[in-house]
């Protein structure tokens, strides 16, 4: 694997992402990744809190309108995340916490799709009390997104190797 990390890190694009002194390159990448995180996790958290009983006087169905915002945040983070990986492949792939983060994101995405299928596509949504199954899905959603954020944040504190010096 070291060869591939080295090869990516030596590429012009990776070097530019890492070494450009412009605030519009690496710092902006991190900034967009943070804003995307806020919208993905925040929108999901709002839906989860509503399903769990917060603001229970409010209908759930119109919250679908926030899903495009959630997916915009997700795709912003997919793109900026890949760019951050191109900048520092060794740093991420040699850190076990990075795989934990990916696992949490995968679980969270499956959970989000299940909420869409179970909750938002229910023809009787808002016509009856929230079923227990939905509450469990909302609880696991909060857990998975919080796990993804925590693991992601810990990447900055747990990496052992920054770059591949040679292969």
């Amino acid at each position: 694997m070291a060869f591939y990390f080295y090869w990516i890190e030596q590429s012009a694009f990776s070097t530019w992402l890492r070494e450009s002194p412009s605030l519009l390159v690496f710092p902006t990448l991190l900034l967009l990744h943070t804003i995307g995180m806020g919208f993905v996790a925040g929108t999901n958290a709002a839906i989860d809190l509503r399903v769990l009983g917060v603001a229970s006087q409010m209908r759930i169905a119109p919250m679908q309108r926030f899903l495009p915002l959630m997916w915009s945040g997700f795709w912003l983070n997919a793109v900026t995340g890949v760019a951050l990986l191109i900048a520092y492949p060794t740093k991420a792939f040699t850190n076990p916490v990075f795989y934990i983060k990916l696992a949490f994101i995968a679980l969270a995405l499956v959970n989000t799709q299940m909420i869409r299928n179970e909750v938002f596509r229910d023809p009787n949504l808002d016509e009856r009390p929230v079923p227990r199954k939905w509450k469990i899905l909302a609880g696991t959603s909060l857990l998975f997104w919080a796990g993804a954020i925590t693991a992601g944040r810990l990447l900055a504190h747990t990496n052992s190797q920054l770059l591949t010096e040679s292969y």
Partner: protein
Amino acid sequence: MRYFQLWLESTRLSGFMNQARFGWPICACLHFLGLSLLLGTVGLFDLRLLGVAKGLSPAAMHRFVRWGVLGFAINLITGTMFIVGKPDRYIYNPAFELKLVFLLVLGINVLVFYSIVHSKVAVLRPGDSAPLGAKIVAATSFLLWIGVICAGRMVAFFIP
């Protein structure tokens, strides 16, 4: 400012933040969780007032705001712990100063919301458009919270 910095550095909390192995990372994780909670609750409430998901009742949705306050409280505490831990990184930092200015304007914006706008928002029904004043307050809140995140994220790149 220099005495303030030295005093902060002499506190036991500052010693804890610098010596405890997990002090800083745990606060950083909580700070990002708080940010997401705040953006997901207050940010979405702002968007409703601006006309997104108008089927939601603003009066009922206002219940979300207390969860945003929880997110803000988490970030106020963890943020203070960062400043006490390494005051020199923050108190002379232009990005951090900009963040404080944004927070100050957001505080005024909250006062404007509850003193002038809230009574007009509380009577809105699902499907109703918010009055212009409420939209201005909501837009200010939404944009400045994103500004707070941007300035906060830039702090690391403006350490003096």
